[in-house]
């Protein structure tokens, strides 16, 4: 086993549950890339790849590394039934048919067209706190804006968005040091049922109405509309996906720019640096640091056979710091001229909402820097949470000025 490659009897160990490792996983990731690029963890029975090329190859090979048993390793252990329409956890041809329904909605052009609306929402969050000497990137912004935006897109009423966010967060959170429980994930979408019923009676120009009316060719080749159950799943999936990860992007923005004042001031002085700064934040601290695949058939990885039935964890956060792709990868540098990061994944399941996340990130950075060009992180009161699928700040309080 590759773990034996470690030097001096000090064998590299990693799992996604230990808080001490989750706090700063990067030294461990570096050792994994060097000492055990195909890592096997016997305690939780999973494999992990950590180098950029290996993660890219794995995520690109959707026939061997399948998503049909979810992309969260705890859930793969259970004999879970993935509901129809939960396309992130389906394989072709079902995945292809469902994703095509929403593919054209989340494209760069459509998302850029939302910029004005996103900016208005952002300004509404920030103006009331503009004079404060303390702000919290999560409570004041990250916890509000992404859910508000996806809610507006979908047509979920404003007053219910907090409840939606809380439910999604609860479904992804792990108790410290422990794997996730399948029972906590609510996969029926029943929370949204009343909105769907309401939208069926009172159509609007929102995405929910579009989902109810769009005709698509399903996996059997039949042209039809989505069933109500499928629309429910779609809405739940999009509301959840558009919320948690973008919130974490905003939290990381507060943390990283807080700790790199020179680069922050550079961006504040030259707004054309904002898009590159967003990409560098995404590379440096991906809100989704790892994603799992189920191994559908025996496959050779780095000279070893990984047997069918295994769980393969793709360490995206490690790939983003691979020395063979990025110059001085452990440095935050908005001026880097390296090839792109892998934060949005790769292959047919790569993040559908990437264009939306980028617009939101850009707008947030611009509006923050307009009002708060300088801040310092209140490290004592910033709380990190980390699971096998997400990693980021529950609170990111900062001292302004």
């Amino acid at each position, binding site marked *: 086993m590759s773990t034996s490659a470690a030097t001096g009897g000090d064998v590299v160990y990693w799992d996604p549950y230990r808080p001490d490792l989750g706090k700063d996983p990067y030294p461990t990731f570096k050792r994994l890339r060097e000492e055990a690029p195909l890592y096997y963890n016997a305690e939780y029975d999973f494999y992990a790849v950590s180098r950029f090329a290996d993660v890219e190859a794995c995520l690109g090979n959707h026939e061997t590394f399948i998503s049909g048993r979810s992309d969260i390793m705890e859930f793969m252990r259970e004999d879970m039934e993935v509901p129809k329409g939960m396309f992130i956890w389906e394989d072709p041809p079902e995945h292809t048919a469902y994703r095509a329904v929403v593919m054209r909605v989340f494209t760069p052009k459509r*998302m850029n067209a939302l910029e004005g609306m996103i900016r208005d929402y952002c300004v509404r969050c920030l103006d009331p706190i503009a004079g404060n000497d303390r702000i919290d990137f999560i409570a004041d912004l990250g916890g509000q804006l992404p859910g508000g935006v996806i809610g507006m897109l979908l047509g979920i009423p404003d007053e219910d968005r907090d409840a939606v966010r809380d439910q999604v967060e609860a479904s992804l959170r792990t108790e410290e040091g422990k794997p996730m429980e399948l029972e906590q994930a609510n996969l029926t979408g029943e929370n949204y049922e009343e909105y769907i019923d309401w939208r069926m009676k009172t159509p609007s120009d929102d995405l929910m109405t579009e989902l109810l009316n769009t005709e698509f060719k399903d996996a059997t080749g039949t042209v039809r509309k989505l069933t109500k159950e499928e629309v429910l799943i779609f809405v739940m999936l999009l509301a959840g996906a558009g919320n948690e990860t973008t919130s974490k992007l905003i939290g990381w923005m507060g943390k990283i720019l807080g700790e790199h004042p020179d680069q922050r001031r550079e961006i504040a002085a030259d707004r054309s640096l904002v898009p590159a700064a967003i990409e560098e934040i995404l590379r440096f601290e991906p809100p989704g640091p790892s994603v799992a695949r189920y191994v559908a058939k025996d496959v050779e990885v780095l000279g070893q056979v990984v047997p069918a039935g295994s769980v393969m964890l793709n360490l995206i956060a490690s790939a983003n710091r691979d020395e063979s792709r990025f110059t001085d990868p452990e440095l935050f540098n908005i001026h880097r001229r390296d090839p792109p990061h892998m934060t949005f994944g790769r292959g047919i399941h790569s993040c559908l909402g990437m264009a939306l996340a980028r617009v939101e990130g850009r707008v947030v950075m611009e509006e923050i820097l307009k009002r708060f060009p300088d801040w310092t992180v209140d490290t004592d009161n910033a709380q990190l949470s980390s699971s096998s699928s997400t990693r980021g700040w529950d609170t990111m309080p900062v001292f302004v000025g």
Partner: protein
Amino acid sequence: MAKITYIARDGETLVLDVERGSTVMRGAVDNALQGIIGDCGGACSCATCHVYVDPQWYDKVGEIGATEEILLEEVCDPQPNSRLGCQITITDDLDGLVVRLPEKQV
């Protein structure tokens, strides 16, 4: 190998040797060319490898697939010669291909 010329919006030109079987997107990303992202790695899913194919080459780069056609309506500033770089596979016939980059991908 085929020589592929990538011309950025500001006129900056880069000529890359790209392997047969690779793609216009892959050739750019592997060489850290700024201006092509290719988030999905070539699965025709993300629309971030948009290029304008030089009109002289347009008929030689292959047909547009159904998914690509949908995504090409949704890129920033689509033009009649727009293509997704991941859907143009490099062959010997494409030696000398010229593509221009859009103002932005996202």
